[in-house]
């Protein structure tokens, strides 16, 4: 029954179209569509109009605050830069190939050099860097938070011990963590041939420190609220400690763990932008900061593009987590919480 309902919800947007095509009471179906699609679209249009008129009335030292049209232009500009850069890269490799071929044709034993193209970082690359960093931090956070949450959920004593620590560190802003993390990373991560950039590690660890708490707390609550009867079944079956964790406790807490992970990824994405700004990790945060420092007439428009990108990606990440949650949870109602 529950499955049917959730499947219906997935088809919610599709059903009226099908019915209109079938010719079932068209008027009602058009109304359904208007409510489901028309209202959000209208709201968005109103938002754009307000933005446009408000933007025109504010003039900063970098010129007028960009309205929707200017932002769209900047987005297009960023895309063209990316295309141009890609072309340059392709040409670079083509030239290199020809040059080396010529050399080898003259003298098969010649030493040829293969260089990597080092052009400007483009906007899509910065997005990828941000995503890579946030997932690294997020996965580290989950790897720490889930086992720790299970332990604190199982033991009231450990929970009492950990609770003050969790409560104190949970509200700390990434901006406060960053200097400490930077110093620690510079001191500890010393290598002549580093596999990762320091700025990347600093950002990822800051994300981890800020986003592990929701997963930790939710896992702990999920584990401690497990049905006593189920634990009694485990006792009657004489399950080993490990079997009890993997077969009873963990599956039972999965819906809560996923709720926590979804919150964590949201926090992580928000924190990442600030971390990248300060750590100079070449992602969206650095992009915003560089544009701000750059201070050209295009800067505000480009920053607005970044703001919208950050919002859209955050929305997408949440949606992906929700789908994962729905897929892995036995308790389908938890996904709606």
């Amino acid at each position, binding site marked *: 029954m*529950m499955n049917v309902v959730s499947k219906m919800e997935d088809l919610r947007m599709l059903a009226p179209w099908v019915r209109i095509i079938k010719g079932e009471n068209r008027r009602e179906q058009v109304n359904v569509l208007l409510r489901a699609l028309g209202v959000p679209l209208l709201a968005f249009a109103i938002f754009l109009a307000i933005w446009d008129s408000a933007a025109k009335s504010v003039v900063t030292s970098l010129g007028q605050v960009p309205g929707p049209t200017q932002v769209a232009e900047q987005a297009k500009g960023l895309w063209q830069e990316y295309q141009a850069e890609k072309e340059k890269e392709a040409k670079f490799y083509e030239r290199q190939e020809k040059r080396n071929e010529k050399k080898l044709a003259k003298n098969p034993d010649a030493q040829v050099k293969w260089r990597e193209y080092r052009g400007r970082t483009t906007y899509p690359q910065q997005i990828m860097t941000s995503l890579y960093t946030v997932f690294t931090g997020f996965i580290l956070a989950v790897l720490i938070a889930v086992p720790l949450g299970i332990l604190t959920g199982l033991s009231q004593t450990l929970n009492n011990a950990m609770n003050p620590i969790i409560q104190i560190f949970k509200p700390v802003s990434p901006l406060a963590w960053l200097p400490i993390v930077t110093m620690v990373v510079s001191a500890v991560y010393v290598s002549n041939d580093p596999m990762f950039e320091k700025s990347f590690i600093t950002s990822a660890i800051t994300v981890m420190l800020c986003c592990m708490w929701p997963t930790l707390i939710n896992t702990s609550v999920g584990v401690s609220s497990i049905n006593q009867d189920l634990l009694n079944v485990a006792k*009657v079956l004489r399950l080993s400690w490990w079997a009890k964790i993997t077969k009873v406790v963990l599956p039972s807490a999965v819906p809560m763990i996923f709720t926590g992970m979804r919150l964590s990824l949201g926090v992580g994405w928000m924190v990442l932008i600030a971390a990248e700004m300060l750590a100079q990790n070449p992602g969206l945060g650095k992009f915003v900061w560089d544009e701000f420092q750059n201070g050209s007439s295009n800067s505000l428009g480009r920053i607005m593009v970044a703001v919208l990108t950050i919002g859209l990606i955050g929305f997408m990440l949440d949606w992906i987590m929700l789908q994962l949650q729905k897929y892995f949870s036995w308790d389908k109602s938890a996904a709606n919480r």
Partner: protein
Amino acid sequence: MSAHLNIDHVSMEFDTPSGKFLALDNVNLKIKKGEFVSLIGHSGCGKSTVLNIIAGLYQATKGGIVLDGLEVNEPGPERAVVFQNHSLFPWLTAYENVELAVKQVFKGSKSKAEMKEWIEHNLELVHMSHALHKKPDEISGGMKQRVGIARALAMEPTVLLMDEPFGALDALTRSHLQDSLMEIQRDLKNTVVMITHDVDEAVLLSDRIVMMSNGPAASIGEILDVDLPRPRYRLELADDPMYNKYRAEVLRFLHERHAKPDVPSSKVA
């Protein structure tokens, strides 16, 4: 004669914030192999405590449980429990729920194919073959309880413990399940200890009914031997004078001789 299951002078004291609370006082009962015993009493009289002590989930403060000459200190599959609220793992199907128990109890002694057969056999016993691969969410309360019984039976218990197994079900479903249980009992001849607060259920199913006095310091009030021939059929029994006599005796015990207000009088005073 040494009993199969001996509940030997069991007392149980709980630590509460307001001091010690004596829940059970000197409960003494010997149960024969293959016997079906019901524990009946008002809610809060410590029936479940007795069952949990037999299961090994609680440790008696005084006295103990002896099963086939060995003392019971911890839970184990030879004393399988059917809980009131089915307690199936909601993320596993009916088959997988039974499988979890079977794998744990018979690992090393049964091959994979034998296990599969055994799981299916037990689900067959409770008439659940049509819903092997349904999750608890997708089946009714009665069906969940059937799977719970199948899981307990699949552990091949020496004693089957049932904690108000049909208490949460509607009357019709309950009578279906009672019939199924009698059918299974006829074939397997398990030793069963069942808690109930349903007089008809107790008389219909039991060889002996143990009536418990109200707590605190609950103990055994009376024991009634139910000497009705098996198989028993509820419709025929409805007009049976012996059945009605037993029924009346249990009712009299519950309502006249030991009717106390829900709140223990000591707290009121």
